[in-house]
């Protein structure tokens, strides 16, 4: 097991990601943040909060998207009970920043883009991830903002812990998955 981020490193990186977003989107007037359920929202909660503090704009549109009904493996695994979607604004003509914790095969992001477009036609969609497992892609998906890029093999697993849910802020790379 290898630690990718300890508590302090994670906080510095979250700050950096938030500043990068503000650098590109300034006051977030036409930009919205959408986290992907279930684990991506723990990251997007933090990012949205940081961006609000940096810009001083506390009215930034922030939503949560569940992609269960858009998966391409519905019948490959056991049927999953969905989380909830909460998007109380229009994405029509907006810049959308999709947020997920780990980018792996790219299939979740494909599903998220399909789900997103059912809510309207965004002007632009960008992707922010904390960990990019860059050699595991099965679809042509590229992130715009990356916390850390790691080279992994399929049997390894990246685990992201959040204080709110798991009692600590930490990201680790595990070698064996049982």
């Amino acid at each position: 097991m290898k630690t990718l981020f300890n508590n302090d490193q994670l906080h510095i990186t979250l700050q950096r990601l938030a500043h990068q977003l503000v650098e590109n989107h300034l006051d977030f007037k036409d930009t919205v943040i959408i986290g992907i359920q279930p684990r991506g929202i723990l990251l997007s909660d933090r990012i949205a909060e940081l961006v609000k503090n940096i810009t001083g704009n506390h009215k930034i549109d922030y939503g949560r998207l569940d992609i269960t009904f858009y998966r391409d493996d519905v019948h490959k695994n056991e049927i999953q009970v969905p989380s909830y979607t909460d998007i109380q604004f229009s994405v029509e003509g907006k810049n959308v920043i999709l947020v997920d914790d780990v980018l792996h095969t790219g299939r979740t992001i494909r599903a998220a883009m399909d789900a997103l477009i059912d809510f309207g036609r965004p002007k632009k969609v960008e992707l922010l991830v904390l960990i990019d497992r860059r050699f595991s892609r099965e679809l042509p998906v590229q992130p715009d903002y990356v916390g850390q890029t790691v080279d992994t093999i399929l049997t390894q697993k990246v685990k992201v812990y959040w204080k709110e849910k798991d009692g600590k802020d930490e990201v680790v790379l595990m070698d064996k998955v049982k």
Partner: protein
Amino acid sequence: MPLSVKHLLGIKELTVQDIHQIFITADNFKQVLQRQIKKVPTLRDTTVANVFFENSTRTRLSFELAEKRIGAEVVNFATSTSSVSKGETLIDTVNNILAMKVDMVVMRHSASGAPWFLAQHIDASIINAGDGTNEHPTQALLDAFSIREKLGDVKGKRIAIIGDIMHSRVALSNIFCLNKLGAEVMVAGPPTLIPKYIESLGVRVEYNVKKALEWCDVANVLRIQLERQHKPLFSTLREYALFYGINSQMLDSLSKEIVIMHPGPINRGVELNSDVANSKQSIILDQVENGVAIRMAVIYLLSGKRDLSMELTKESGA
């Protein structure tokens, strides 16, 4: 596995956990139905056959909408236009439909138990859309879902089911469902329309509608099913309306405001007066709306894991 069953034959077979899973999933589908694009592509690889051996408007329409909005292909079959009138058996009819590569069957039949019989003979998942006077599980689920939506929870609430209990599959499924969810259930109506020994299902019995209304938080009013009554069980519809019909004066005289439900179709002026059916207390149209979300949830959760590699070998071998 999210549900403990492969088919939805009756509420009787479901666990409390199953019902909650269906509700959580239906919450999500209800949200989808409120969007501009009321459709998701989830089951685009699934074909569902609606096989209706008995007339139905809203249930069939509701199932068909649910199937289309979850992305499935739909084929419809009604006895009036089929070979059943030429003497084909139930299994033959359904097997023929399945031979056309159908993954799921939604069936309504006038014989109680028909879906159970079918489940023993075919592989596809079966959803019971009403069998005789036995069960109508999706109706009970959408009724309980509507109560949960209106009152926050079903547990501890008092629900009175009023009217033709004897011939009602809605009543039976509702009793099973509400009991499982921890509600108190009462049935009310004329003694001739309440089956003997129904207390053994854990329900109260009341013959005075006014008293039933005074007791309950929710009144689920049922239709008089004249088509199933083969001998006279009350003198006239007018007399029934007089003694068991619900009007707004009755509701106004109660000490609290109760919720009015009806599975439809309503016989206005018989079991329910128009002023009650159209009132603020009535959630009859919410029930219809929730019906689509509940059916999408059931279809989704039953669609299950498939052995895709098997299908491919079969294809290539053919």
